[in-house]
C-alpha cells in the first residue's frame, strides 16, 4: 500500500514553489511590462529601439529556449543564477514582453483629447500619466493582464526541466517512486486549474473595483 499522504505532501510542497514562482514572476513581469510599454511610447528613438528589441526578442523565442540559455549559457559568462532566480527572471521578462504590448495598446486607446486637455491644463508628464491617462488605461489592461498571469502560471511548469522542485517536478518524482502515473498528474492538473481559476476570479474582482465610478463614462 502506497503512503499517499506523504506523496501528496510532496506535491503540496511543489505547489508552494509554483505559487511563489508565479507571484515573483508576475511582479517582474508587471515592472518589465510598464517599463517597456512606456518605453515604446517614448520621445527618444534610443529608448523606443531598446524597448522594441526587448519585446521582439522575448516574444520571438520560446520561453523554454530562454530558460535553458539563462541557466546553461550565462554561467559561462560568470553569471550564475539559482534555478529559482533563473525561473523568475525568464518568466518575468517573457511575460513582461507580452504585457508591454498590452500597456502600449491601452495607453494608445485613451482618446487624444485627454492628452491635449492635460497639456492645456499645464500638467507635468508625470501628472498626466498618473492622474489622467493610467486611471483610464488600467481597466483596459486588466483582463489581458489576467490572461497573462495565467500564461505565466502555466509556464512555471517548464521550470521543472531545469530541476527546480515545483509541482510538475514533484509529480515526476512521485511517478518515479510509486510507478503510479494517474494520481500525481491528475492531482497537479486539478491544482493548476484551481490556481488559474483563482487568478481569473481575483482579476475580475479587482477590475470591478477600479472601474467603479467609470460607468457611463465609456461605452
Amino acid at each position, binding site marked *: 500500500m502506497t503512503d499517499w499522504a506523504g506523496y501528496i505532501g510532496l506535491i503540496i510542497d511543489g505547489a508552494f514553489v509554483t505559487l511563489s514562482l508565479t507571484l515573483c514572476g508576475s511582479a517582474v513581469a508587471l515592472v518589465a511590462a510598464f517599463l517597456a510599454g512606456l518605453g515604446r511610447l517614448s520621445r527618444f528613438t534610443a529608448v523606443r529601439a531598446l524597448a522594441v528589441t526587448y519585446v*521582439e*526578442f522575448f*516574444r*520571438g*523565442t*520560446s*520561453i*523554454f*529556449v*530562454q530558460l*535553458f*540559455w539563462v541557466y*546553461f*549559457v550565462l554561467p*559561462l*559568462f560568470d553569471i550564475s543564477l539559482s534555478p529559482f532566480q533563473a525561473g523568475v527572471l525568464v518568466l518575468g521578462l517573457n511575460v513582461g514582453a507580452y504585457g508591454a504590448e498590452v500597456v502600449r495598446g491601452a495607453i494608445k486607446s485613451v482618446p487624444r483629447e485627454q492628452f491635449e486637455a492635460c497639456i492645456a491644463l499645464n500638467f507635468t508628464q508625470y501628472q498626466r500619466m498618473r492622474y489622467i491617462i493610467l486611471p483610464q488605461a488600467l481597466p483596459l489592461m486588466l483582463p489581458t493582464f489576467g490572461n497573462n498571469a*495565467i500564461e505565466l*502560471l*502555466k*509556464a*512555471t*511548469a*517548464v521550470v*521543472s*526541466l531545469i530541476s527546480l522542485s515545483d509541482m*510538475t517536478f514533484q*509529480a*515526476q518524482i512521485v*511517478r518515479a517512486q510509486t510507478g503510479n*502515473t*494517474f494520481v500525481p*498528474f*491528475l492531482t*497537479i*492538473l486539478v491544482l*493548476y*486549474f484551481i490556481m*488559474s*481559476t483563482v487568478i481569473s476570479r481575483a482579476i475580475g474582482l479587482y477590475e470591478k473595483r477600479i472601474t467603479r465610478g467609470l460607468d457611463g463614462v465609456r461605452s
Partner: protein
Amino acid sequence: MEWDWEFVRQILPDLFSGLKITIIATVLGAAFAAVGGLVFAILRRSGNRAVARSASFLVEFIRGTPLLVQLYFIFYVLPDLGIRLPALLAGVIGIGLHYSTYAAEVYRSGIENVSRGQWEAAKAVNLSVRQTWVHIILPQAIPPMIPALANYLIAMFKETPLLSAITVLELMNQAKSLANSNYRYVEPMTIVGVFFLVISLISVMGVRMLEVRFAPKDDR
C-alpha cells in the same frame, strides 16, 4: 568562452534534422487544433445544455493547466490505460488539443461577429441551415479570424520545445543532446535561439501582412 565555428558547422546537420521534426510537429498540431477548435466551438454552441456546459468546462480546464503537464499526462498515463502512442504522436495530440481550445475561442468570436441581420436575411430568403453556414456566415466569419489563428500558429511553434520533455527528438532535444555529449552549451543553445527568433520574426511579418489583407472593412 570562445565561439567555435568549426563546432557549429559540425552540429548544424543534426540541428536541421531537429528543426524538421519541430516543423512537422507544428504543422500536424496546427491541423489538429484547427479541426479540434471547430469541434469545441460547435459543441459550445450546442442546444443541449449538458453538452455545451461540459464542452465549456473542458475548454476552461485545458486552458487553465500547463501544456507540459498535459503532455506528461498523455505520454505517461494513457499507456497505463492501454493506449500506447509514439512520442511524436502524443506530442502532436497534446499540443493540438491545447491550442484547439484557443482556436475555439477565435472561431466563437468570429461567428458571433457576423451581424444578426445576416442570419435573419438568410432566413428571410429561405436558405437552409447548411446554405446559411456555407454561403453566408462562414465566408464572412473566416477572413477576420485568419490573423488571430496565425498568431496562435506562431505561439504553437514556440511551444514545441516542450515536446523534448517527452523524448521527441526535435530541435531543442537535439541541441540538448549535442550540448551534453560535447560539453559545449553556448553554440547549440544560441543557434536554437537564433533559429526560433528568425523563424518567428519572419512569420510575424507574415501575420502583419495577413492583418492588412484581412483588415475588417470600416463600413460603420
